[in-house]
């Protein structure tokens, strides 16, 4: 079934907005299209062929990765492969490479974009989980042409529902502070070999150590899915913030998190109890990994490609 009629490749965000406006809700944005086209064809059964797709991967400001003044900027149309291969991202946001590196297979990562992952607004999107832990902001171009930076968590409204309407708004890109000396991040997830390729649980951690590298000065943890939208695990963060690092502390906090956070069961993915155990398992793995990276200053992404 033809799923769309016209295919547009605007060169600027303004052109994209104008193009969408022209179709007045009968066109949608496409980036990699690896989720969108499958949804249109198999979930929506191609019931409503779109008048047009508006491809944002030809907009140069949306396909760049750049570091400036201590901030890393990643365009929304940057592919997962580009992120995985970016030495800038690996150095300044290791967890983002690790999460983008386990999405799909190679062919999908070659076209699927970080913006697409976020726009899909899944409670456990891999790239999303890391962006939340990195404390990222997202830049949105609203239909009226206004540009706005929003904290990433404000993008999500519910499972699969974002604040943006892909028939009129454009998600332009992301920014977050580059990890500096004594700071680092890490991401891991638990999958099962059956059924849909959504994580049972993903966990991204960003840590900031004190000068002696003994105390957790600050940190952000995103464990997903534990809620209808990606959220920071504030309670867990609070239990660690300002504390002196020890194996026992990590174990104790991980164990407490297992009992405190209440992930739900989801059909053909995981029981609630299993997810609780995985919270402990992941924290026990990801926290020490991030801390080790912050201490050593060496951050090499792990596990890329075989998620």
């Amino acid at each position, binding site marked *: 079934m033809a799923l769309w009629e016209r295919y547009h490749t605007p060169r600027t965000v303004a052109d994209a907005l104008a193009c969408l406006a022209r179709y007045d809700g009968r066109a949608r944005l496409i980036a990699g299209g690896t989720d969108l086209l499958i949804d249109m*064809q198999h979930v929506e059964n191609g019931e409503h062929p779109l008048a047009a797709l508006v491809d944002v991967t030809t907009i140069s400001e949306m396909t760049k990765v750049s570091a400036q003044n201590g901030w890393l900027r990643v365009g929304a149309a940057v592919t997962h492969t580009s992120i995985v291969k970016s030495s800038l991202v690996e150095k300044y946001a290791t967890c983002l490479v690790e999460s983008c590196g386990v999405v799909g297979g190679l062919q999908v990562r070659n076209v699927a974009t970080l913006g697409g992952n976020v726009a899909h607004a899944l409670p456990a999107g891999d790239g999303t989980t890391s962006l939340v832990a990195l404390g990222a902001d997202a830049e949105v171009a609203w239909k009226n042409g206004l540009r706005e930076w929003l904290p990433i968590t404000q993008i999500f409204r519910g499972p699969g529902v974002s604040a943006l309407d892909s028939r009129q708004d454009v998600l332009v890109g992301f920014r977050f502070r580059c990890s500096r000396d004594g700071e680092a991040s890490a991401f891991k997830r638990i999958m*099962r070999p059956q059924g849909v390729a959504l994580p049972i649980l993903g966990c991204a951690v960003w840590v900031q150590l004190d000068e002696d590298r003994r105390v957790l000065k600050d940190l952000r943890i995103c464990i997903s899915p534990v809620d209808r939208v990606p959220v920071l695990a504030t309670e867990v963060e609070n239990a660690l913030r300002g504390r002196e690092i020890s194996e026992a502390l990590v174990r104790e906090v991980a164990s407490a998190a297992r009992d405190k956070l209440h992930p739900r069961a989801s059909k053909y993915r995981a029981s609630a109890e299993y997810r609780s155990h995985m919270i402990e398992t992941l924290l026990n793995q990801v926290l020490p990994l991030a801390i080790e990276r912050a201490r050593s200053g060496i951050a090499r992404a792990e596990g890329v490609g*075989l998620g």
Partner: protein
Amino acid sequence: MTELRLNINGVDHDLDVSESLTLAALLRQELGLTGTKIGCDEAECGICTVHVDGIPVDSCIYPAFKAQGRSVRTVEGLACRAASDEEQLHPLQREFINHCAVQCGFCTPGLMMTAAALLDENPEPEDRDIKVALKDTYCRCTGYTSVLRAIHSAGRVMRGEEPLPPGEPEVVTPLKSIGHSELVPDIVDRVTGRAKYTDDYSFPGMVFARTLRSAHPHAIVRHIDTSRARALPGVLAVLTRADVPGENAHGIVTLDWPVLVGENEVARYTGDAIALVAAGTADIAEQALRLIDVEYEPLPVVADPVYAHSPDAPLVHAGREGGNLLKHIKVRHGDLQRGFDEADVVVERTYRTPIIEHAFLEPECAIGVPPGLDDEHQKLTIYVGSQIPYQDRNQVARAMDLPDEQVRVRGTLIGGGFGGKEDIAGQIHVAMLADALQRPVKLLYSRQESLLFHPKRHATVIRIRTGARRDGRLTAVEAELYGDGGAYASLSDKVMTRATTHATGPYDVPHAKIDCYAMYTNNPPAGAFRGFGVTQSAFAVEQNMDLIAEELGMDPIELRHINAQKVGVVTATGQKLRDSVGLLETIRICDEDLRGKVNGNFRWGWREGDLAWGWGVACAYKNTGLGGGAPDKSAAEVEAFDDGTVEVRTSSADMGQGLVAVLAQCAAEELGLPYRQVRVLLSDTDLTPDGGPTTASRQTFMSGNAVRHAAIGLRDALSSVLSEEHDRPPDLLRFEEGLVRVNGSSVSFGDAVRLARSQGIPTRIQHEYWGPKTQPLGTGGDMHFAFSYATQIALVSVDINTGVVHCEKIISATDVGRAINPMLLQGQIEGGIVMALGNALTESFIVEDGVPWSTLLARYKMPSIKHTPEIVSHLVEDPAIEGPYGAKGVGEIPSINTMPAITNAIYNAIGVRVFSLPVDQDALLLALRHGETEVHSAWHDVRETKQQV
């Protein structure tokens, strides 16, 4: 229409095409580059991979206009032309051939394109790099071991090093042709994209069809209104039940499956066909389906075989004698009570196996061509990749109310079958549409429709009680099996009979009572699937064996050794085994490989950090041939030509296993011809005699024998002519190297043929080979004429923090009688093992109250290259007296014992036994945390809870 500028395989194109095309559709439909295959339309299977500016992408969901101004490379662009215009294969193409990494060939373009991009970027990849690159490019045939090796080898060639030698298994001394790893003749076509599968054919005036299927798993169809669909511009025909010219039924064993469900008839599963639409394009046909209004009266659903057997279950086939009980199958052997009285230990457990989907990478496709289209089509012709062409012809003829002879079925290449292309899919439907429109009609199923429609592996519930003496001798087996046959009979009777008769395992069991209930339900029909019921019962049998061993404190290999079938043993069906029982040798070889070098330091399970490791063993046997008293025959003909070549013809199907090579080798062997002088024509009901169904691991044995005997007949005919001509007794003639030697002089084979022809001696010999007679179950005697045997040992790791299980290694030994083509045979073993690994760890086709949940390939994960374990496969050649050169079947035996080997290994690793498949890491971890030793739930049992955050 807008201009699309692309460079495709080095050639610039300015195309005026629709903007709504995907890249795959553009390549296949607009440009005729059909080497790029579509397997799922979901970016799941990866076989549609092409390069855009050197980057591999899934072309099935890549908008063609996304590639505007870029370079696209497809499989057709892999090879290059030398100055002499000779085709120079890419190193990947050559090494895929050399390492036998091509079976059905349907996924091959995708594998090679993905690998080509990898090698361009990383000329010296490690195993891990290859697994990362090819993780989402599936192959259902090879098991990936040969693919890995081929890619490494191609990398070496591209770096200017020597290629890797093919990993040929050790075999007994080869004959002239038998025992050599000859290449499948069309192998170059399969690596260049030239090989044509059904959807790659096109005929003048061809139109496209789609099928409307039932909206309910069980409902009376009250009214069908097609008027809106007929009115849609571009729609050429809408057919319903009233348009079926002949009998409205098909079925391989029982004619209980309607061609189309009509008004006031019952739809019995969600794959039942209600109406057919043909239109100028597949898109219009698809749109028209949505305009057909059907009123249903839903009926209560029978969703479970055990429930189906209860008196209050609704009837799936109302009025049928026997109700939902499709078949009660019984094995009675010895005196069960006495057997259990003699037992010192008895174990009893219940096992569950799920519905399994074949997921052959080529979805079903059929093309109907009306009589008189051109010289080649004098009668109604069906193009289809089918495992049973003659039965297709009969079923089409019956539904079309035509004599069999007025229908021709022409088999195309088959992109994988595994048992799933035995039943009728679109064959009758395209016949009806072609007849109605007098135009060629193509009916291609989408992946999603294929998932919904075709028969699957039976889900089973198996309770089994096993008794043994303190010395390890088995005394009795009692078992009760339930098989979910789904809505229609298909091959349920046969499949579940095989599950029942093999439920003692390959052991000497003096007393047995086994009852199996094959049930009708409103689930998708279940039918043939590699392993044919034995895969299910072996899962139960072989875990009970380990439970017995544990009770006895005995080594599990030792227990199997003590009880292994050998010549002289009488099976539970009363068959005395007389020859070719190589089980003990397979056990010995695996044992030797496992712990021959460890000097008593061997442990079945151990811990290393957070990983628990375990080895697990399981044995298997599987019949070759139909057996059970069914007349089993195969016909083949061999024709010799003046140019010294020979053509072998039989309707048997090659779905990737390499039958073409095996048959050519049989003819070459008998006629002393170089292999390349033998051509093989398969699967054409007008040109090839009936080779019978390609099922039950039977074709090497059956068609191999038919070809062998036909070739001997031809040789005898030529001998008699030459012996007269040279005045020498025929037994002094030697057929070798394409010559016939007579006392120091020789004539070429072609000259011998010419001479025979000049004397009016026929040089086309047909032979109908009848397999040794077998007996129906319950009558004693030989139920089967041969069995293959195997032992497998699996190594698994279990992460004790997550429950995640990996199968790291499989040691396998398989008694195949005789390896006619060792590399092809090894490919069957590796592929069979990985397929069964999927049954154990990744696969379950989920149906909820009659409605499939597994409606997308994204919801049905088969093993990917990342799951592929190291496979060490040994061959045992204990010749079958009746088999051609001693050969017996190999197609199914590798898929039988992998599952229990893996679950036994899991138990040895962590002390938790898995009774239901596929293994659920969730349940496994919780069992570990709660100190439980048995898991009776599987992945598909993981449900939502009401609890919200």
